[in-house]
């Protein structure tokens, strides 16, 4: 279970840069939560702060996983506890092949949890299965990670990582309005196939479109660094129809 309590976060080393201004959120095992909100509301920051991106600083509040605070943990330690962030724009890493990268990640997690590392043979078997399941072109995974991948291929690759690493809490940062339908579908397929009573998701998105493919249990509207409203899947439809205007202060003043 993930619990976010009164979370405040700023950009590291920049004064008066508070982006998250007291977020409270509770995600139970097996639930899929969608976080929606207007541009600049802090959605993407929230996703990154949960994973421990060093560009941000938590100034108040806490993040708990199964009752233990993770706010001081490094990103790799959070990953070992089962957190996963699917990136909106995954980095291109020349010279590093997906297999090699995922083996290192899989081994690191096993080691941190005191489990035995998977043999090269067994890992290759798992990897090949997941490559097929996610529908990535097998030639692609022989190339450098994400280098020269199309937007859709990068998304599939993120889903491959999700499948191989089997996190218990996956956060998907899909804030960009520019994602094409194909990419949305890939992400949605990944989430739907991974949905289980043991795994929770936080799907961060601007538009309701993604939620045509993923039915969340709970929808939150994040405005100006705080949760402004929480509801069921129907809340997403309201936003789709009316936009975020009613949540913004002095509606109309910004044009």
């Amino acid at each position, binding site marked *: 279970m993930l619990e976010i309590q009164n979370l405040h976060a700023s950009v590291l080393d920049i004064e008066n840069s508070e982006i998250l201004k007291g977020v409270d959120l509770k995600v139970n095992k097996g639930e899929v939560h969608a976080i929606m909100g207007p541009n600049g509301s802090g959605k993407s920051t929230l996703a990154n702060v949960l994973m421990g991106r*060093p560009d941000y600083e938590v100034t108040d509040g806490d993040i708990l996983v199964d009752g233990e605070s993770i706010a001081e943990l490094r990103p790799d330690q959070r990953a070992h506890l089962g957190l996963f962030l699917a990136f909106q724009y995954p980095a291109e890493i020349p010279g590093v092949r997906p297999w090699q990268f995922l083996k290192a*990640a899989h081994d690191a997690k096993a080691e941190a949890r005191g489990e035995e590392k998977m043999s090269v043979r067994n890992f290759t078997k798992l990897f090949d299965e997941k490559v097929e399941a996610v529908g990535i072109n097998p030639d692609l995974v022989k190339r*450098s990670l994400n280098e020269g991948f199309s937007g859709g291929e990068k998304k599939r690759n993120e889903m491959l990582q999700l499948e191989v690493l089997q996190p218990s809490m996956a956060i998907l940062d899909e804030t960009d309005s520019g994602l094409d339908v194909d990419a949305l579908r890939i992400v949605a397929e990944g989430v739907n196939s991974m949905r289980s009573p043991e795994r929770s998701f936080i799907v961060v998105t601007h538009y309701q479109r993604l939620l045509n493919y993923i039915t969340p249990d709970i929808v939150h509207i994040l405005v100006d660094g705080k949760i402004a409203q929480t509801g069921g899947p129907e809340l997403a439809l309201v936003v789709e129809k009316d936009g975020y205007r009613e949540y913004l202060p002095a509606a109309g003043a910004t044009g």
Partner: protein
Amino acid sequence: MTLATSPAAVEKFLSAYENADQAKSPGWLSDTRQQAWSIFSELGIPVKRRGNELWKYTNLTPVAESDFEYDLSGSVSIDQVRSTSPWDDTWNIAVVVDGRFNADLSNLTEDDGVSVGSLSDAFSSGSGEIESQFASLAGREEYAFTALNTAFASDGAYVAVAPGVKLGNPVQVIFVTSDSAKSRASYPRLLVDVGSDSSITLIETYVNLSLSRQLSVPVTEIFAASDATIRHYRIQMENENSFHLATTRVAQMEDSQFTSTSFAVGSSIARNDIHTSLDAPGASCTLHGLYMTSGQQQQDQEISTTHVKPGCTSDQFYKGILSGNSRAAFSGKVVVKRDAQKSDATQKDLNLLLSRGARIDAKPSLEIYADDVVAAHGATAGHVDSDTLFYLQSRGIDEEAAKAILIRGFAEEMIDEFEPESLNAFVEQVASERIPVLLAESDTIGTT
């Protein structure tokens, strides 16, 4: 006053030169050596850098201020060679110790159409074109270190491939500096003559068994006849107190291909000066390399190609990984002569700086006198990207391991070029041992 303009450090090499073995040299060679000595004694060690484009980035004062003995009494065991160099029993391997060919340590296969052996024997038997080839590309020019090497040239290795021979197994020449507490100078020499329509994989390896300061001044001359294909590799891993000032000169005839990849991790001051001359239409050369530096090391790549005739292609591409207070220089030069229409030339130097103290001077340059030419050049220096680092960390890989993966990834495309399996494994091993050393001296990554 005169001191400042007189050639530096010449006297330090004089007695060694006077005592050097001339007995077995044929007359033409003695003449060449004497001429070379007079060139060196006029030039001295090039310590003056201001206004001296060739030596602008290479500080040779430590070389000029050191004393080196000339001593050929060192001995080396086969185990020492095999444990420090790439090795494969199927390769045709010549081992040269302190500049002297050593038959006992060599692994000379009986492959048809190729002779691999001592340069001294080739001199005395007048093999092939040796009299006209030796020192024709390097040695008579106004260049201190080729002159110095030539002045001492009595032995080394000689590789000749007969016309029309496609060699399957690589040929390797290992230049070993023997173990000694004394500082010594050695003058490794290699002459390679590849006949028309022949092909060879040639590995040049420089290793040092001594931990003390050694000066190594190698010269390699390579002749590629028409339609010859040469896949060349160069491994430089001498000890970090040593000086390695190397010159490679390549002459290419019609439609010949010279493809070279170097891997340089050794020495206190190292300079890899390679020049290819595309002397006939359709010749192509590829000069690639990877350098890794740490501590106080300096690694300089002086890479130049001359397009003499039309329709030739050159490709220079180097990558550097620098840490600690190390320095590197990439000075790439392509000259396209007026006759060399339809030339295609690219130059690239990419660097990963891991510390604030590391410094790269990159100077790609094109001098084009023809009008129908395709040319491009570029150089970059960057740090490990913090977003990329976070991406790896978010998958559970800790910062140190993530950095190592990224550094290794940066080197990957160059390491991949080392194709022979045993060679690739060797380079892979050395690189993976070097990366933690570089990481231990890094300070600019992981910060935002």
